[in-house]
């Protein structure tokens, strides 16, 4: 288990450009000869991309809630009108 985490940690440092020059060279050499490691790197990149996608979706639905709230709240009438009048056809 520990070995696997070390691997994850090293891949993380490699992907974020935080390995020292020598370590990075060694890692690249390992990548050349180790297809499993190559696959792990790709999977880990994909994992970060999915976390980003997840986060963007979550914020988007939160912004939708904020939007609904602002455009339905009676106290925000002035704000609503100032925006809506921009889009009313003359």
């Amino acid at each position: 288990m520990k070995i696997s985490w070390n691997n994850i940690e090293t891949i993380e440092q490699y992907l974020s450009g935080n390995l020292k020059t020598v370590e990075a060279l060694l890692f690249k050499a390992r990548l050349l000869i180790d297809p499993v490691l190559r696959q792990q790197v790709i999977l880990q990149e994909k994992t970060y991309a999915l976390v980003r996608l997840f986060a963007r979706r979550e914020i988007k639905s939160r912004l939708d809630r904020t939007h609904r709230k602002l455009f339905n709240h009676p106290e925000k009438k002035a704000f609503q009108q100032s925006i809506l009048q921009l889009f009313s056809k003359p």
Partner: protein
Amino acid sequence: MEVLERNNLAQRRMVTENAFEELYEQAFPLVAKFVSKMNGSFQDAKDIFHDALIIFYEKQNAQAITVQVADKVYILGIAKHLWLRKFKQTRGHVSLDDLEQDISIPEDYYQENKENNRLLSLLQISGRKCLELLRAIYYDKLGLPAVVHVFGYQNVRSATVQKYKCLEKVRDKVKEKSISYEDLLE
């Protein structure tokens, strides 16, 4: 002081629902005005504004905003770029000042990826807790002490262990559920 404020947005977001709301009220009028000038609809203004806010948030977290300018002005700059990209208009129609010229949009922002959408739906069912933790660390860029506080871990060490456990869990799930296996072996 302002920089301090900015870096705290993520922390504040975890604590209060209002962080985005204030920014919404300040910045949406500017973006709406721009979109209406470009003959866009209310819906266009909303969509572009939401994307601009997300990108703004990402840039803040990555400390990629180095100019001293009001948040709403920067958000308008992002919105202009998004408008150009979305409606494929030439820059001639949209005037960009020096500050706005320098704004970049994340490469992957408009990349639709069916495979990732499918994987995310699966992950949200089986690994939502891990996604939340990884999001806080990698996307919101909360420091580990803040993560300990927000997620109720014992200490930084146990949060770190959990981070790697989650990375491994999600990575294994991605491996298990990927169809485009060839992609992985490229």
